[in-house]
């Protein structure tokens, strides 16, 4: 589904990524580990062009989104992202956080369709009966879009057990709750893949579990996930592919049993011996 070809990223003169190629299939759960400063977060952020890649291609569902001329906003709608620091919209309530993007995007499409219909109607005036073009059907009104989004948001909140928090502001939530709302926010767009950028690193130890549980549930439901994390146990349990990135390069890529059981790369062996005590 995502095909990364020779991805490079430079900040000024410092090369962060030095040619990364990787293939992600539908349903894959790929965990990326590596020491800090290795470029794993940059790699993840390049995947949805949060950082524009310097060179290379990212083919997402047949389109090269590393190309600066594509409308990245359209493609990002199919790629959720979860941040280390949650980044919930502080000026919106929990349910508004979840509804904002779906409602906005669908209303935008609705306006676009209406505009096109108006144009078709105008041009039809000057055409013969046989040539007249048909109007594009409008599926839902603005009120319906909102209602559907609200229903969807509430059912998502129910799944994570936070339906009673729908109308509070994010500042009143705990870290674990914030992160779960953030995950649900990206789910509300029905993405094909979700990128997790160290989702548990900013959490208290006792809240890590609830977030990992939700991610585990998503994994079981077959969501494609790319996760940058330091939770080795979680990686072992959930991933079907683990990448080790250091110094801007993929040094090892293997299924978790092999990755943790028989690491080949000396740098990875050293890293694992320090991390897995």
């Amino acid at each position, binding site marked *: 589904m995502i095909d990364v070809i020779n991805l490079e990223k430079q900040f000024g003169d410092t090369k962060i990524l030095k040619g990364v190629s990787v293939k992600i299939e539908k349903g894959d759960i790929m965990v990326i580990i590596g020491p800090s400063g290795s470029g794993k977060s940059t790699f993840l952020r390049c995947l949805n062009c949060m950082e524009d890649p310097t060179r290379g291609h990212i083919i997402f569902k047949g389109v090269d989104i590393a190309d600066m001329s594509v409308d990245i906003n359209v493609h990002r709608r199919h790629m*959720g*992202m979860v941040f280390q620091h949650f*980044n919930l919209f502080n000026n919106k309530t929990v349910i508004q956080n979840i509804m904002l993007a779906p409602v906005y*995007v669908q209303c935008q499409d609705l306006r676009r369709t209406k505009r096109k219909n108006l144009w078709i109607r105008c041009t039809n005036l000057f055409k013969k009966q046989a040539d007249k073009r048909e109007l594009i059907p409008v599926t839902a009104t603005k009120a319906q879009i909102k209602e559907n989004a609200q229903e969807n948001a509430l059912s998502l909140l129910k799944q994570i057990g936070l339906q009673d928090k729908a109308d509070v502001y994010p500042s009143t939530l705990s870290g674990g709750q914030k992160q779960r709302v953030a995950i649900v926010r990206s789910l509300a767009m029905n993405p094909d893949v979700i990128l997790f950028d160290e989702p548990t690193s900013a959490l208290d130890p006792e809240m890590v579990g609830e977030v990992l549980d939700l991610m585990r549930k998503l994994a079981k439901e077959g969501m494609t996930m790319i996760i940058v994390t330091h939770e080795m146990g979680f990686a072992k349990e959930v991933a079907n592919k683990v990448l080790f990135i250091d110094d801007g390069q993929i040094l090892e890529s293997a299924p978790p049993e092999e990755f943790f059981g028989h690491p080949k790369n000396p740098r990875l062996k050293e890293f694992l011996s320090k991390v897995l005590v």
Partner: protein
Amino acid sequence: MGNFGQKVDKFIEIFIAQNGYVRVLEGLKNTLLIAVMGLLIGILIGTLIATVRVIPKYRRLPRILNGFCSFYVGLFRGTPMVVQLLVFYYVLLPLFDIRMTGVQVSIMVFGLNSGAYISEIMRSGIQSVDSGQMEAGRAVGLSFATTMLKIVIPQAVKNILPTLGNEFISLIKETSVVSFVGAADLYVAFSYIGSNSYEFMVPYLVMALIYIVLVLIISTGIKIMERSLGKSDRRN
């Protein structure tokens, strides 16, 4: 102090019997009109400029716009308000053969001028919002402009509201120079009363009181607004 009472009597006579209050109300209306419209135009221009200045500058268009905006800000912050009024009224209007009243020119100049100041206030406000907010907005597929409008600017405005209030207050007070281009504001009204009675003490005292009351009302309004915008910070 013996004749202070007489002076007050004289003022009251002109104020009420000779319809002085009509002029004062007219002046008050113009003062408020210029300040409020100026502030609204200023917020609009300021927000636009501030947005332009925080756009990432990889491409040429944002860079050109940015250059233009810093020129604009430099121009309007680098000259006194009175000079701007005079230049617009006596240089630019005749040059382009445009007919505008003093009040209209004042509204325009106050808007342009406060736009320059508000752009810097707004920029600091936008930069005070965590960059993660913008990233989160972009990550769910909203455009830069939409995220700015729906997420970043509302939070920025909340942060800069006290400073914005300051700007409004100083606008109200600065309107006292619009008589340079023939706009009848509070100052014009009271100096009319003063020169009719050859007695300036009481009119100018009353004028000062009116300004103070105006400013007090505004600062109370800002406090109320702050409280209502601050509800997303409160833990309850």
